[in-house]
């Protein structure tokens, strides 16, 4: 049997905040033959279960909940009559931009695209990735799964909760479970600092007197059918648990908020090179990957702190995809950023333009009184001071047009000077 093949100028994989923003921007830049593919039964992605507020302050100047933020973009998609298919799973993307997808109405089909935007988002690091010793009882959930159960299904995963990891989702769930009547006994963080936003420590933990234990991890899990207790312990500088600090906490639920991983199976199938630090594609300033015509944006590219920045980045990809479809080719000469280690990565990793560029980056540790520098060989082309930088908060710098125009073409080193 020959499968149906359709052609599209632009296909966007993922109908979450990244995919919707990219689609809207591409449409506004002139693309009319475009299609969003979404595997869930509605647009909106993870925002649908993020019922807390705090979204949209940058993008809309208002404090919105996740579903409200998603709804704003859904309205924009509908106003433009942008086509989308729900309940549709993409199984493969080839380097020459043929997409294999399937849904229960059309079966399996191919889409031949001039350009593809990858906007699949990220998934949570599961228990299996942690190697925590112990039994395998019910009651251990990722924070995002618990969030879906509580906010969308109306089910409480448990009553006595310990949370491992202090990422934002874990902090948000500490508050959510407390409001719904559960007791959160502890939030444990392996690192000496929290990976979450300072405002979330304040309003999700301090407000409810939930203790946050830094440099602490879960070293044991007990329970036959249901979780009965976890054992926590402090860790030394090498993150090794200290036996004398072990303490057992009776609980029926353990939530894991231990990191997010960009979901790049399709990116790999398209032979797109990945960055080992971000686990996302290597891209240029247009968010075009190293495969011409394939773009990536949002959490599939690198994990963002705020959806507002996802929307902004995705609009860059959408506009650039429109220009690519219109015939623009990539500037041949690519200049690569080389992070010094204190700066862990940059996005974009490469620049192929001679225009102004915003560079986003994350740092490896909490540093105070830093100077951010960018050097082209021996010549310093950027310098800025900052009181504090932290791994949980993405930083950005702007390289001006005249600076980018003056670059020699050799790799740019980007780093931090710490004076303490």
């Amino acid at each position, binding site marked *: 049997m020959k499968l149906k093949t359709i052609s599209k100028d632009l296909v966007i994989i993922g109908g979450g905040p990244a995919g919707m923003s990219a689609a809207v921007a591409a449409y506004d830049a002139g693309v009319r033959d475009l299609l969003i593919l979404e595997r869930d039964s509605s647009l909106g992605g993870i925002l649908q279960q993020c*019922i*807390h*507020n*705090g979204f949209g*302050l940058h993008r809309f100047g208002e*404090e*919105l*909940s996740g*579903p*409200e933020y998603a*709804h704003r973009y859904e309205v924009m998609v509908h106003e433009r009559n942008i086509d989308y298919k729900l309940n549709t799973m993409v199984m493969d993307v080839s380097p020459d931009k043929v997409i294999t997808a399937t849904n229960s109405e059309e079966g399996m089909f191919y889409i031949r695209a001039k350009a593809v935007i990858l906007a699949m988002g990220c998934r949570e690091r599961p228990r299996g990735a942690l190697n925590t010793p112990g039994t395998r009882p019910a009651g251990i959930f990722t924070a995002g799964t618990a969030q879906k159960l*509580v*906010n*969308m*299904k*109306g089910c409480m995963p448990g009553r006595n909760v310990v949370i491992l990891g202090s990422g934002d989702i874990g902090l948000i769930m500490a508050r959510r479970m407390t*409001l*719904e009547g559960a007791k959160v006994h502890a939030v444990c963080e392996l690192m000496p600092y929290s990976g979450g*936003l*300072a*405002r979330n*420590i*304040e*309003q999700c933990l301090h*407000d409810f007197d939930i203790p946050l234990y830094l440099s602490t991890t879960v070293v044991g899990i007990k329970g036959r059918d249901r979780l009965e207790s976890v054992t926590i312990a402090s860790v030394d500088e090498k993150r090794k648990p200290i036996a004398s600090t072990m303490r057992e906490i009776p609980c029926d639920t353990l939530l894991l908020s231990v990191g997010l991983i960009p979901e790049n199976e399709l990116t790999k199938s398209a032979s797109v090179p990945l960055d080992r630090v971000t686990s996302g594609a290597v891209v240029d300033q247009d968010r075009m990957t190293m495969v011409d015509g394939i773009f990536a944006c949002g959490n599939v590219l690198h994990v963002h*702190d*705020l959806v507002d920045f996802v929307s902004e980045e995705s609009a860059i990809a959408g506009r650039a995809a429109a220009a690519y479809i219109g015939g623009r080719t990539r500037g041949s000469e690519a200049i690569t950023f080389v992070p010094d280690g204190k700066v862990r990565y940059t996005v974009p990793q490469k620049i192929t333009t001679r225009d102004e560029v915003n560079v986003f980056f994350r740092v490896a540790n909490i540093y105070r009184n830093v100077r951010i520098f960018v050097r082209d060989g021996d010549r310093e082309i950027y310098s800025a001071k900052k009181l504090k930088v932290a791994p949980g908060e993405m930083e950005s710098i702007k390289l001006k047009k005249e600076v980018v125009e003056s670059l020699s073409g050799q790799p740019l080193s980007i780093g931090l000077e710490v004076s303490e």
Partner: protein
Amino acid sequence: MSKIVKEKDLTCIICPRGCQLHVTVADDGEITVTGQTCARGKKYGETELTHPTRTLTSTVLTADGSMLSVRTSAPIPKEMLFACMDRLNLVVVDHDVDFGDVIIPNILDTGADLIATGAWKRA
């Protein structure tokens, strides 16, 4: 000269920047906020030391058993959070609701409405 009777270090929760605020209250009642980078931070510092408020977000049940997300239209007194949770947990939505529709007007006399942050339609 006025004397400082209370002081507190706070993390502003108004935006993701999370400014570190230092707030002092003088014996004449004057409140001084430092460390903020915008006017909203100053207001947060003042309210936090006089009468802290929070926006409540949660869900209410609908007639088909699905959940509808809701929030208060304005921040409510912090000590009212759990009472408002108890109140909104009594709700079963049985009529069509759109984004922004009022579910409970002036919830527990806080002056804020409980509004829908999603849509629900009767089957």
